[in-house]
């Protein structure tokens, strides 16, 4: 990509979401924290909430970036994977740069991708060797500690043939950070018969704006499972991750669990492009508004014969404020494809509450049970502790709401 074109793209508004004026934020590469120990207590608590275990038990590797500086990048001994800062990896492996860098996400997609491509490269690079099946999850944390920070992240994840990896990517900001922008570009390459589970949990500050840009390419027989969880207030998040299934038998499943409190705006989508015959995809979203705004975009594009994909989007309004909008789109370009969608947005059906009450539950218990069940998508690849954490968060949240 020509530098000039990228310069021009710095002005390019994104297809969706409010346009952010990046000049208002502090774009620096300073080191604001020396080690994870320097994190504030609330910061540490937040990391735990997004699935990051600083004790690193049951983790194969740990990466921590604070603002625009890498804090930590450790791989447990004898783990057949490479983990390092993307900028460092670019210097070390020019052949990989040639083959992968900015091949999934076009750098001139919008101003956010352009600035990330132009400035000093941060983020994590993960490379799993062919056939290596990594038992414990790799945890990657991107943390914002500095007020008015512009955080840029470029992640590159490569799974070679037959390898398997489970990534927990936790993003959060310090309680003290009121304003900030997080730009997170992720390019993921799932090789032949490889399997990647990618769980991203967000817990941002009240006034933080977030613009992830994720594209995953899946080769023949590969599996990509993405879980996205955001249950805390975030001022403005817009993302529309895309999976391109490029080899026969490739499979993708995208799950999202969203809870939008008052003052939140979550424009979260998911797109699967089925480019070759014999591919399958499923996108499942569960959204709850407790007063915030949620837009669920979903797109299934069938470019080939003999493909199958399903889009499911269910929303629950627990408040008279806010809204949930479901915008599902299906594109079938051949005569032999099976694309379906199912969307439903509403409040909890009183019959459901009454039904549980007739089995002896109080109205509060019944409501909480229904909400928990509603959010209970079968999240594969999520460690049990994390799954429990999500349930606990939900319970705490319900008690706060007096539900």
């Amino acid at each position: 990509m020509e530098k000039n074109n990228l310069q021009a793209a710095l002005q390019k508004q994104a297809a969706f979401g409010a346009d952010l004026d990046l000049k208002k934020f502090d774009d620096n590469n300073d080191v604001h924290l020396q080690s994870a120990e320097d994190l504030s207590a609330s910061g540490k608590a937040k990391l735990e909430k997004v699935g990051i275990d600083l004790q690193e038990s049951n983790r194969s590797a740990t990466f921590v970036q604070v603002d625009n500086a890498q804090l930590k990048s450790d791989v447990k001994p004898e783990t057949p994977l490479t983990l390092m800062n993307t900028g460092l990896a670019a210097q070390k492996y020019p052949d990989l740069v040639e083959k992968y860098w900015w091949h999934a996400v076009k750098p001139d997609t919008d101003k956010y991708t352009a600035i990330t491509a132009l400035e000093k490269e941060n983020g994590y690079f993960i490379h799993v060797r062919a056939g290596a099946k990594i038992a414990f999850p790799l945890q990657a944390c991107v943390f914002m500690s500095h007020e008015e920070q512009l955080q840029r992240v470029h992640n590159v994840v490569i799974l070679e043939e037959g390898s398997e990896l489970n990534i927990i990517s936790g993003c959060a900001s310090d309680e003290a950070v009121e304003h900030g922008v997080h730009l997170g570009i992720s390019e993921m390459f799932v090789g032949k018969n490889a399997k990647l589970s990618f769980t991203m949990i967000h817990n941002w500050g009240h006034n933080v704006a977030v613009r992830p840009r994720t594209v995953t390419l899946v080769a023949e027989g590969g599996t990509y499972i993405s879980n996205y969880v955001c249950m805390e207030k975030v001022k403005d998040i817009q993302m529309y991750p895309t999976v391109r299934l490029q080899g026969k038998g490739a499979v993708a499943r995208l799950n999202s669990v969203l809870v939008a409190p008052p003052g939140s705006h979550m424009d979260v989508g998911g797109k699967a492009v089925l480019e070759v015959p014999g591919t399958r995809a499923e996108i499942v979203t569960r959204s709850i508004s407790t007063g915030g705004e949620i837009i669920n975009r979903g797109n299934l594009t069938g470019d080939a014969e003999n493909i199958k994909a399903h889009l499911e989007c269910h929303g629950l309004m627990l408040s008279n404020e806010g809204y949930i909008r479901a915008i599902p789109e299906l594109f079938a370009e051949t005569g032999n494809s099976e694309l379906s969608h199912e969307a439903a947005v509403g409040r909890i059906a009183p019959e459901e509450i009454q039904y549980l009450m007739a089995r002896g539950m109080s109205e509060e218990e019944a409501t909480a049970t229904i909400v928990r069940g509603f959010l209970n998508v079968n999240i594969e690849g999520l460690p049990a502790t994390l799954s429990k954490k999500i349930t606990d968060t939900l319970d705490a949240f319900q008690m706060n709401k007096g539900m």
Partner: protein
Amino acid sequence: MLNIEHLSVAVGDKQILTDINLHIGYGEVHVLFGPNGTGKSTLISTIMGFENYKVLEGKIVFKGQDITRASCDERARLGIGVMIQRPPTIRGLSLRKMVEICGATSKEAESMAAWMGMTDFLDRSVNEGFSGGELKRSELLQLMAQKPELLLLDEPESGVDVENIALVGRAANYILQHVDCRQDKKCGTSCCGHKADCPKNNPLAESGHSGLIITHLGHILKYVPASHAHILYNGRMTCPKGDPLEVLQCISRMGYEHCAGAACARKG
């Protein structure tokens, strides 16, 4: 056990039931016949205390306690259990969890489900994609765990295939007759909870449980020792002391109107 006096009920602005009187003693199972749309389900829903069923007049007394204004869950905890015709789906809540919520231990849930042929459904969401017969078995499984003293069944046979009707009937019978040895203090006899070993006992008398069953075809009567029958016709209760099989035969020969009127009055 249950005394309903002069009960009138409206749904929305429409009055459905007028001046209903019903007395169900301990150990009695009553059957309720009547044409569609006459208010049978409304009566059961009102006894259970579901929202939207407004009591205009009269009262409902259960085990000596006036529950006319009690919430649905209070009634459940007092010992009333219901099987409704079209239970909702509770997405994400497994049937296993539901059975445990109803009061079963995880081991009991397993064995009860095996008995009801529902083992394969335990880890599915409650009622999600269940067929008519599976819904009934799911409901009865929950009720087995709930162990109500007053069992309300709204058309337990509808949508159930011939093979499963016996299972549904036996399950209803089990709930009615089974003495809960963990809770019931009067459970002192050696065959408590294992009625099959005690042919001389009147199991229903021992359990003291009662039931109210809505049925059209009466298949359930082969399995459940019903003692009384009523016909609900035009929102009013008739035939207070009818014999279930006689009333059923009358209806199939002469129709509801005749049996609810003249035939009933003759029995007086």
